[in-house]
């Protein structure tokens, strides 16, 4: 689900960061300054309500918990219903309710705009992070009636549908019914009385899932990395003479992309030796993550209501490939498939042969419906992670507890890692039955305190973020092993390394030696004290040497995001410049240099 709590942000950073300034103005002008004026006042009010709670409140709180995070709960599978997360969803809802619904002076159109990320901009998108628990009610009467009143008869339904597409929760699962939503909503707006009691008085902080980070590695990881040097997807694609974008007849990856604009001096952090090239620039439009094909040729962007792919071999003026999906592009490490989540046809994840992009390359308006014969449904979730089998036998697809990360838009500060004791990740074993890889029964793996799982290209490793109390603890690297158990496949994930680094979802290089992530600046961290708040940078960690390098030095309002490798070691990332409303894809050779013998 995309429902990623604004409130975890609330607990970490000043409230003014979580609430766009324009919204704060709206609230103030509506006489609701108290709502956004101070987090302590909010907490005080909630505390007072909780003190006065009754047995009915306790029963209601338990019902709400079951509805949200119980077995079969609405949020289960994507988010853990920790007290921190529930408070976050509820508090975000309270803010929106006060600003956009309770205020009597707003017109219906103003109320709709109030729900946007930037209320002063009628073209601004909507965000589940901002709406909090209201995202679970996006398809119900309250918002339907609002849109009906706000727009002409010929427009309102399309606009409401667009709103639901952007924020509706859950994405892919079974939604709440309206009566249940109304009941939980009422409880949340009353301050979520008896929440702690209902959950047994346990929070992440004392629930045994928040760990401090101790750097570690294992001989098993070292052996794996040694094997991947010659047998991983980097080696495999090189053995196949896979043509890498921008390399031509170059003998070394370091000689690639020389035709692209050199922006090294513009973005490089002090002391880092790298070459950075700008590959593609466009008006700011994308949301959530960006991914590229293993050969570096295609870059996929989710736009929230549609998606696009840029073929970097085509001129800058060439039309982009339109994709009928919302977001989360993904390209297989084997360079033969791509996927998107939120397919327009049925909101599923659809995986297509990469050759489909070549098939349509000659069209004047190239488009992929994801319904082509070269496409199949692989799941119904978001933030999917997919590997490719090296041995022709099995690979995995995963999705599970995660933090939504729409960098620069509604995420401008470090993401929480409130993965509670009940956090789970789903592993779908994809087994070769000789005709195709078929999905076996999904395995739901309990991973207390861990989420944002990303598989390595071989799917023999995963990396996740783990809770560290008030902040993220760091990353854990785990092996992924399939074991037979009572005629079914079970999954084991023994720990292989712990990397003490703050950041968002991480990705592996194709030789699985490097991790890359983006790091929203947190000036309370000693190594970031001099960096501008409201920016993010790219960080790389070397699992062999333990070395960590911050590659970029972004200015305030500039977000370097979503780094991901291509097969030859070049690292692509996106820069969203919220000041100039431009975004561009860049590539750095830093891992090629770090990995050179």
């Amino acid at each position, binding site marked *: 689900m995309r429902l990623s709590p604004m409130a975890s942000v609330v607990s970490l950073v000043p409230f003014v960061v979580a609430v766009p300034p324009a919204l704060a103005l709206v609230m103030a002008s509506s006489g609701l300054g108290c709502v956004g004026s101070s987090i302590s006042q909010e907490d005080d009010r909630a505390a007072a309500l909780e003190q006065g709670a009754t047995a009915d409140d306790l029963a209601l709180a338990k019902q709400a918990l079951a509805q949200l995070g119980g077995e079969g709960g609405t949020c289960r599978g994507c988010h853990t219903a920790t007290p921190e997360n529930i408070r976050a969803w509820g508090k975000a809802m309270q803010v929106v309710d006060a600003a956009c619904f309770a205020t009597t002076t707003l017109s219906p159109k103003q109320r709709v705009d109030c729900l946007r990320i930037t209320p002063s901009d009628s073209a601004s998108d909507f965000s589940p992070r901002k709406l909090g628990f209201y995202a679970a009610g996006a398809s119900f009467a309250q918002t339907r009636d609002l849109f009906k009143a706000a727009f002409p008869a010929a427009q309102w339904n399309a606009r409401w549908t667009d709103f639901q597409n952007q924020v509706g929760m859950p994405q892919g699962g079974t939604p709440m019914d309206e009566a249940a939503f109304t009941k939980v909503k009422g409880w949340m707006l009353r301050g979520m009385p008896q929440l702690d009691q209902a959950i047994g008085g346990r929070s992440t902080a004392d629930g045994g899932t928040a760990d401090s980070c101790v750097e570690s590695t294992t001989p098993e990881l070292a052996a794996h990395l040694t094997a991947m040097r010659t047998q991983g997807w980097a080696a495999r694609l090189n053995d196949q003479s896979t043509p890498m974008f921008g390399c031509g007849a170059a003998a070394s990856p370091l000689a690639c992309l020389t035709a692209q604009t050199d922006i090294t001096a513009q973005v490089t952090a002090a002391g880092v030796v790298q070459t950075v090239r700008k590959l593609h620039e466009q008006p700011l439009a994308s949301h959530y993550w960006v991914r590229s094909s293993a050969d570096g040729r295609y870059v996929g962007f989710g736009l929230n209501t549609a998606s696009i792919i840029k073929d970097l071999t085509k001129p800058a003026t060439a039309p982009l490939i339109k994709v009928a999906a919302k977001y989360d592009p993904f390209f297989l490490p084997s360079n033969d498939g791509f996927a998107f989540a939120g397919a327009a046809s049925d909101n599923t994840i659809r995986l297509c042969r990469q*050759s489909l992009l070549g098939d349509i390359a000659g069209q004047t308006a190239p488009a992929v419906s994801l319904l082509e014969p070269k496409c199949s449904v692989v799941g119904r979730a978001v933030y999917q992670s997919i590997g490719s089998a090296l041995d022709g036998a099995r690979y995995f697809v995963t999705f599970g507890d995660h933090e939504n990360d729409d960098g620069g838009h509604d995420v401008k500060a470090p993401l929480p890692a409130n993965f509670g004791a009940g956090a789970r990740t789903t592993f779908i074993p994809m087994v070769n039955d000789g005709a195709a890889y078929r999905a076996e029964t999904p395995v739901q793996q309990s991973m207390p305190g861990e989420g944002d799982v990303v598989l390595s290209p071989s799917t023999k490793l995963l990396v996740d973020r783990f809770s560290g109390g008030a902040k993220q603890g760091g990353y854990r690297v785990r092996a992924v092993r399939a074991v037979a158990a009572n005629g079914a496949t079970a999954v084991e994930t023994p720990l292989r390394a712990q990397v003490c680094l703050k950041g968002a979802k991480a990705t592996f290089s194709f030789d699985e030696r490097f991790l890359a992530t983006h790091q929203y600046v947190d000036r309370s961290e000693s190594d970031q004290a001099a960096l501008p708040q409201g920016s993010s940078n790219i960080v790389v960690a070397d699992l062999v040497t333990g070395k960590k390098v911050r590659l970029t030095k972004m200015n305030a309002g500039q977000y370097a995001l979503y780094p991901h490798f291509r097969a030859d070691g070049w690292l692509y990332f996106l820069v969203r410049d919220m000041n100039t409303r431009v975004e561009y894809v860049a590539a750095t050779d830093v891992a090629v240099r770090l990995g050179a013998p």
Partner: protein
Amino acid sequence: MTRLNGETARALAGGIVAAALAAHGFGCGTRGGESFGALEQDAQPIDRLLMGKASAYPADSSLRARLPQLDASIAERRKMAWAVVEKVVAPVPLAARAGSGPHPRLPRFQTWYSRDDVLPMFDQLFRALRASQQQTRARFDDAEITRAFAWNATMARSLTSFTETRRTDRLHEIGNPAGLHSLGKDARTLMSPAFVGHLLRSYPEIIACTIPGKDAAPTSDVNFAPCLDGEFPADAAAVKMRWMPASEPLPTYDTSQGALSKKLEAGDFGPGDGLATPDESAIYTMQLTPETSMRLAALHIMTKELRDWAWITIWWSNEPETDFGRDRPASLRALGGPWDHYKMCVVTAFDEKDRSARVDSADPASWCSNPYLEQGAGAAKTSCIGCHQHGGTGESTASVLADGARFPAHGREKVRANFPGDYTFTTSTGLDLASDFRAKVEALTSP
């Protein structure tokens, strides 16, 4: 309704080999969905190093003259087909050996080339062209292609991924039969040297192909394949396999007259009539990984010995001496291995000219379909030649089966006057080599 006709039924009941047959062919398809994630990328250079160059398919140059006879007699056709099977599975010596022992042997088809072999060879050949030749898409000459095959057989040693330890480890893994059978891994499609040579020679046409309309006249009397440099040579052959995990029982299919009639009527072979757990002596098996063994359930064979190809398919059976296995020659058994556990059917033409072998007296379209490969709704009623006529056109199994108006009789009827890929799916839809060739050419020649 499709059902075995009376003559076929009588032939079956009388134990006449020709009758076993009710149905034959390379059909159309697999059960829904595309496959991704390296299904065709399993062969590794070290395996090629151990195998050496692929073994050429020994074509029978007399077959084309015998086509009328083969078309008219199911018995003669089956005799020819068993002979092809024998040549395809015949053990051939490999390049590598452990110590001073004999060179290990593999069935000939397993030495053939996968996509993983073709792409590096293409890269090698194209890079060797001068810039001006690359720009004009100059054709590779035969001597260069011959050298590329030799280079491919030893290219592993030139790769950064190569280590002597990997080679000796792999040599150790192939020390027993199941390990040996894993050379080349479980890639689904393998191609003979002549087949691959023709693809490489044809790259200018492959990457520039504009698919002609179905009624467009062939380029000439001797070339109906406009997206290739002419038709494939007679020793071109290819196989498509289905390896199934040995961790689960193998479904079995009853192909007796009555059971097959019902399956054809339904249009679907279904999930199987029973289950079996054959061991390595009864079914061809490879040890794919330490944890995973795979059984060869089915093998399609196409050879260009006939102009419209000979289409043969074999499948494993728990009752191998009945119906489609009853006329298996003793010489196949003499090859050793479990090949006497496979049944076979064959087609050589769009129309079945041996009336006793028609599946429906009112339907002249030939039929042959493999229960392990032709799965899903309608697929049981297909035929290799019918589906493969669309090779290189962008049509797929799914699109052929989904459009009965454009592709009558479940795609078995001949609807094209030209065959862009000479009946092969290797350039588009299947292996998508056209896409790979094009990407390579663009990468190396773009300004």
